[in-house]
């Protein structure tokens, strides 16, 4: 492979015919090497593509079922003795669900057995009943047929994530419970439905009640802070460095600094946020405000670098023309150069925001990993963000959280793809080539 391909005879006097023979003799080998090298390159590309495909297929196959939720049909006697106008809010609705289960399986008597029976439905089933009764109080005293969410273990069995014919010791659910599930299935009392809870609720310890709305709202506030701060500052810095700054050691220093900051590990920005924003300034922990500030510092270099590149792409003739008709430098830049460079700057900003949206490590440092059930309503409420939610769920032991994690990843990727598509559209629609 590494043989020299131009040969001269050792005496220094080469006869042309001899050289041609040597070259021709080696041609076959060299062409083979050429082909091998080419194949090697192609296989590297294919390797990358295959990994990407493998990862997507794996995550989608694990996650798509989380968009469905197993529901159990129960007939609930809304007993006026239990529920009346006075205690609509705190009545024991879960007890009603339990009673209806007992009625479905009257043969269950033992305490342990009963507990297993109750575990068929989610601990959030009572809330569903409560909502139904609150909507329509005339239900009191009647029997309502109601679909309530199943427990996560039942959900896993129904969706086929847990093999039913494993030996009992290797399953989370006993044979008895499996028998009940089969009985319910044969009566048509089990179905899977579009999982609204997943999009409408915050985090929960119960997989079947956990949702991503809280994390999505947290991400929204955090990214909003990041965008509002980093876009104007980034554009301003790019403008100064590219259009106004004198070329001296100070601006050189700033430039080197920005390039270095772009390559500093993100977790170091988290340490900065912890020491400066939380300890020194005493801003509220776990809040989108602090998260946004940290992400602003992290994304600024990206935005500045992209902004400078798009300012450089504007031809100098534009500036010269504006200056020659009497505009000041500021006017030339703000009235003529900036509007032309703005699409490129926006593209860079969207890409930076995409990176901020997927960032996890620095947010762990500023306390956005807390278990938060409530949906944040402002910039100083404790919150978490989508990637951190993914991290938290990935750490949970329950099998059902694997599904939720994958589904949350799919949602996050959907947001990122939408943002990148917007960036590509902007670039194609507005960018001018000179």
């Amino acid at each position, binding site marked *: 492979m590494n043989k020299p391909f131009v040969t001269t005879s050792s005496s220094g006097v080469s006869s042309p015919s001899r050289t041609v023979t040597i070259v021709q003799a080696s041609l076959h080998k060299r062409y083979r090497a*050429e082909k091998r090298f080419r194949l090697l390159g192609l296989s*590297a*590309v294919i390797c990358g593509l295959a990994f990407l495909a493998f990862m997507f297929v794996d995550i989608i196959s694990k996650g798509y079922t989380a968009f469905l939720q197993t529901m159990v049909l129960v007939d609930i006697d809304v007993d006026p003795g239990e529920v009346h106008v006075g205690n609509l809010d705190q009545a024991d609705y879960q007890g009603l669900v339990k009673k209806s289960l007992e009625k479905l399986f009257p043969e269950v008597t033992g305490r342990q057995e009963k507990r297993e029976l109750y575990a068929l439905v989610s601990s959030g089933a009572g809330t569903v009943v409560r909502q139904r009764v609150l909507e329509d109080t005339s239900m009191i005293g009647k029997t309502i047929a109601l679909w309530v969410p199943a427990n996560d273990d039942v959900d896993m069995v129904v969706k086929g994530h847990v093999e039913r014919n494993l030996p009992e010791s290797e399953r989370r659910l006993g044979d008895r419970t499996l028998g009940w599930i089969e009985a319910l299935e044969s009566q048509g009392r089990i179905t899977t439905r579009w999982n609204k809870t997943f999009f409408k609720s915050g985090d929960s310890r119960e997989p079947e009640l956990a949702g991503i709305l809280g994390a999505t709202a947290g991400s929204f506030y955090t990214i909003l802070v990041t965008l509002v701060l980093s876009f104007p*500052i*980034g554009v301003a810095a790019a403008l100064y460095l590219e259009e106004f700054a004198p070329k001296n050691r100070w601006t050189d220093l700033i430039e080197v600094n920005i390039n270095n900051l772009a390559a500093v590990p993100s977790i170091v920005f988290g340490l900065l946020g912890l020491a400066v924003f939380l300890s020194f300034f005493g801003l509220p922990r776990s809040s989108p405000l602090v998260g946004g500030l940290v992400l602003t510092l992290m994304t600024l270099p990206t935005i500045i670098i992209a902004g400078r590149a798009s300012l450089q792409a504007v031809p100098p003739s534009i500036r010269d023309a504006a200056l020659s008709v009497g505009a*000041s430098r500021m006017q030339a830049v703000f009235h003529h150069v900036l509007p032309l460079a703005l699409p490129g700057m926006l593209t860079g900003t969207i890409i930076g925001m995409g990176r901020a949206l997927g960032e996890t490590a620095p947010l762990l440092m500023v306390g956005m990993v807390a278990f938060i059930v409530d949906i944040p309503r402002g910039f100083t409420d404790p919150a978490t963000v989508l990637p951190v939610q993914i991290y938290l769920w990935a750490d949970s032991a329950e099998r059902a959280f694997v599904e939720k*994690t994958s589904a949350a990843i799919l949602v996050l990727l959907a947001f990122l793809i939408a943002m990148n598509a917007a960036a590509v559209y902007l670039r194609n629609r507005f960018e001018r080539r000179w």
Partner: protein
Amino acid sequence: MPGMILLALLVLSAAAYALGQRRVLRMVGGPTRSRALASRPRYYGTYVALWCAVPALGLLLLWVFLEPMVLDQLVLRHLPESYRSLPPERVSLLLNDIKNLAKGGIASGQPDPAVRDAVEHYRNLQSLAKTALWVVVLSLSAVGLQFGYRKIHITFRARNKVEKVVETFLIIASTIAIFTTIGIVFSVLFEALRFFRLVPWWEFLFGLKWSPQMAIRADQVGASGAFGMVPVFTGTLLIALIAMSVAAPLGLLSAIYLSEYAPRAFRTAVKPILEILAGIPTVVYGFFAALTVGPLVRRVGESLGFAVASESALAAGLVMGIMIVPFVSSLTDDVITAVPNDLRDGSLALGATRSETIKRVVLPAALPGIVGGLLLGVSRAIGETMIVVMAAGLAANLTFNPLAAVTTVTVQIVTLLVGDQEFDSPKTLAAFALGLVLFVVTLILNIIALYVVRKYREQYE
């Protein structure tokens, strides 16, 4: 509350803008004669609006930062002497309680009369501060408006003044990068120095044992803990090495193939797809490494007869390598396309095949750039957090066996800092010392890499 004040300021400055513009137009005798002005009319408006908004905004910002501290001091002064002489951490606990009670929340334990009095005092102070803020900010804004309004006349160069303000803003924005760096250096260095007062630096840098978890309680056996970072750092290097031995060949070869061989259609289709790899959040890679690649590596290893840890360095390194591929390949792509075509044509004209041209001419010419790109890749691998937090271990084993579980600098920082923190325990401070090491190492790598890449670029420009 600051939101409402901001809104009020916005309205006021809009009014100031209109007033300024009207005044100067009236002075010159109507819009038709605005040519006689030193600047366009809207610059006069902007000038007055700036006077109206900027000083008031500055005051508002200062107030928001200072108010909590001042209120704390005032409340403390109000408390009886017996409370004020408490140790500082008890005082801050007490202040916390008072604030919680004032908000209508609950405090730890039953509040006594003195505290309840302080709560009342705090509430009063708060509402007083709120009113005072409104009055002070709005009057400052009005004074500013008045001042700016008075200053303008026909020959006044409003544009120059406004442009000066804008330029100042631009300069401040561009120095934020410097302040960020200073902030990083100081916050990490300060805490790290406190750590080195508790644990000598030579023990930290050269110690062979890392077990910070033991230092929780003073009376425990081995209470001092062990803070030798050598095993942590070798773990980091091991994973980075595995990652680079995946990323370097894959990234280089795919960049070479895409820029030198691939047909145009293939290139335009495949390149964006490969770049998706760079856009995927690292937490997703971490999940994939922990749940799919880790068990897979383990199964394959065990079927071949090796003992594989469930959180092996290999799994984390492999996935990290894939993550870095697009990074390496896009940098390589840049430097390869920067090699002048004359060099390629010369080699091809001598009868070299394409692969010979690439290996003997293009790559040697692009070598500095490629090395720079790889160094940046290494710095990324060292600083990467989520993949290793989710897929690598916690135990600091001093080993170079890729099938064993190792831990990394970033994993340790996360485990030490997530959860409850006491700012004076060596456990928490150790995280900052590790952060300092991480920052310094990646900084050195970045500086060398950026320097090499820059020198290389200049060579062909």
